């Protein structure tokens, strides 16, 4: 088995002790001692409560933590968890933890989990973020049940979010993934998801592992791979999305993980995305309140200031990436007063498409292209915040939907840019 080479001897030894499993839950970690214990306890509680008869295993792929994360995973006992008394273990619930080789990277951890699932012949697998402190035992059931029953191959989450949380997802990642690949997966960059054993094998055979997308932003690459492979998709409501990861506030890192991986995926999937004109809904298995509205203190002026600075300072870079009319339009809106400023749907969609085409043509370093989009995104985020200041959750969703439709309508322009007709 070729994928065994991904696993260290220690990993293999522990997996061989497990034998085979029906269900596998993977937890990729790196210095997550603050939260991982609680997360693993909840996973165990969920497995014991909802899958008591199945052979289950929790696999922790660690990137070489120096804060005793693996010890906490191994030590996270069901007795420590405050769970109801109707939980009974009918089978041994294995929990293994080992370090994967190489530098710490989520992609490598995911690959290790996939290889473990393959070795254990698990029929349903889930990945849970070690930082998901809001996790409940029923998340495990909601993710795994549809896959274990054989109804779906890939289940992505729906989260309860504040209307201004996940702005990059709402303003770029979701609309663009939907426009490119024709599936309305609302969380294409999910920290929790489930997949079938068959899809896991498909993931392992993908070429992403030889590229940067196989190290960072692997989550979105897996979603795209599931869509491109024609697998059965579903999404299910889990609960509140936690944000403990300091990296999630780093915009450039977030753009590399999402936009970089999304742009990269366009290259091998050109035939697929260039053929789609519209999008299809993905079955939603459990719905819930998705948008919360409590007031937040946000420095909007700083966002706008960084947009202004970006457009002015990056002019020579933007001229290499964008078409002259788009650069002119950006300079025009950058000159507007704060109360008149608007980075509208159409201009934003056109900007992202031109960035995608320039990424394809490598007009400058691809990483620089992704970085150059960050200041422009800040201008778009400012507009989103202002336009939705008084909006209800439903209105926010409607505005996101309107932008998605704009992206779909303008998609032919990307195909033309891609083929060099413009």
């Amino acid at each position, binding site marked *: 088995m070729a994928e065994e080479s991904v696993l260290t001897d220690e990993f293999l030894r522990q997996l061989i002790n497990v034998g085979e499993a029906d269900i596998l839950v993977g937890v990729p970690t790196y210095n997550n001692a603050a939260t991982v214990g609680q997360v693993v306890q909840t996973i165990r509680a969920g497995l014991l409560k909802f899958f008591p008869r199945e052979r289950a295993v929790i696999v922790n792929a660690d990137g070489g933590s120096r804060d005793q994360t693996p010890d906490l995973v191994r030590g996270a006992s069901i007795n420590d968890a405050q769970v109801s008394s109707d939980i009974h273990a009918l089978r041994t619930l294995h929990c293994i933890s080992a370090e994967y080789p190489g530098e710490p990277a989520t992609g490598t951890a995911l690959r290790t989990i996939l290889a473990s699932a393959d070795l254990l012949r698990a029929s349903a697998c889930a990945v849970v973020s070690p930082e998901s402190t809001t996790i409940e035992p029923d998340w495990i059931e909601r993710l795994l049940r549809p896959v274990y029953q054989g109804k779906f191959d890939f289940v992505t989450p729906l989260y309860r979010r504040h209307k201004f949380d996940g702005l990059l997802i709402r303003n770029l990642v979701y609309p663009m993934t939907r426009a490119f690949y024709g599936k309305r997966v609302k969380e294409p960059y999910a920290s929790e998801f489930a997949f079938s054993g068959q899809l896991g094998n498909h993931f392992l055979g993908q070429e992403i592992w030889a590229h940067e997308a196989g190290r960072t932003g692997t989550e979105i690459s897996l979603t795209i791979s599931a869509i491109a492979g024609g697998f059965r998709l579903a999404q299910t409501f889990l609960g509140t999305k936690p944000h403990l990861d300091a990296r999630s*506030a780093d915009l450039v890192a977030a753009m590399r993980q999402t936009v970089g991986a999304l742009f990269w995926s366009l290259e091998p999937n050109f035939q697929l995305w260039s053929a789609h004109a519209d999008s299809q809904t993905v079955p939603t298995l459990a719905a819930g309140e998705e948008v919360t509205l409590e007031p937040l203190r946000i420095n909007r002026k700083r966002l706008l200031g*960084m947009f202004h600075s*970006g457009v002015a*300072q*990056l002019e020579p870079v933007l001229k290499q990436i964008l078409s002259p009319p788009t650069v002119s339009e950006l300079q025009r809106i950058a000159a507007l007063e704060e109360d008149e400023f608007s980075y509208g749907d159409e201009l934003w969609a056109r900007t992202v498409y031109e960035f995608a085409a320039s990424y394809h043509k490598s007009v*400058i*370093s691809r990483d*620089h292209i992704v970085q150059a989009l960050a200041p422009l995104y800040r201008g778009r985020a400012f507009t989103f915040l202002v336009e939705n200041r008084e909006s209800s959750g439903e209105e926010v969703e409607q505005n996101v939907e309107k932008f998605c439709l704009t992206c779909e309508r303008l998609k032919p322009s990307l195909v033309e840019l891609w083929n060099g007709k413009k």
Partner: protein
Amino acid sequence: MREMIVNELTQATQELIREFARFLPRLLVMLIVVLVGWMIAYLLKWILRSILRLVKFDKLSEGAGATQLLNKAALPSSTELVSRFAFWIAWLGFVLLGVSALGILGLEEYVTRFFVFLPRLVVALFFLFFGLLAASFFSRAALLWAVNTDMPSPRLLSSAVRVLITIFTASAVFEELGLADSTMLLAFAIFMGAVMLGLAIAFGIGGQHLARRFLEARFAPEKKEAKEGEDELSPL
């Protein structure tokens, strides 16, 4: 007496004819070498041009900022320039090889010098190209970093990075070519010393706040967040 003069003239003429007869094959060899050299150089130019087009050298050169310089100087594209340069260097090499076949004393030394210098010239050009490429890449990286971290004067920082790398490149090129070694070294040391002193004074006196912000962002980000007292917006 008359007979003697005739004999001398005959001998001199015969000597001249003999010399010419000895020289003629060498001249022929030189002409052949020059002609074959031209053909080889032309073939080299054609192959090099094809390879450079295949690896999109013009795009690389555009990224390095070399294309803009060439356009300003009304020169052809980088691919064309490099292939033409290779042609002339190769052909010149063959011409000198042919000239050395003539066996003219004194010329051979210059020919040898040329062939010793040739690899250094190629290495110097290599340094120049990749130096310009690095200057362009790192100055853009500095610009993007400064803009995305909201640092003041991003273009100044970017230009400083570009100038610094270009100076390093120029010094490496001159050293490789062996042109005015000591003068260049002295000029470089004086220039770098002046720049560093200027930067130190400017940063120390004029940029106290910048230095504080930089150090806080680098070593104590928590303090900064607490001071701002705003809700963190997660892009993901």
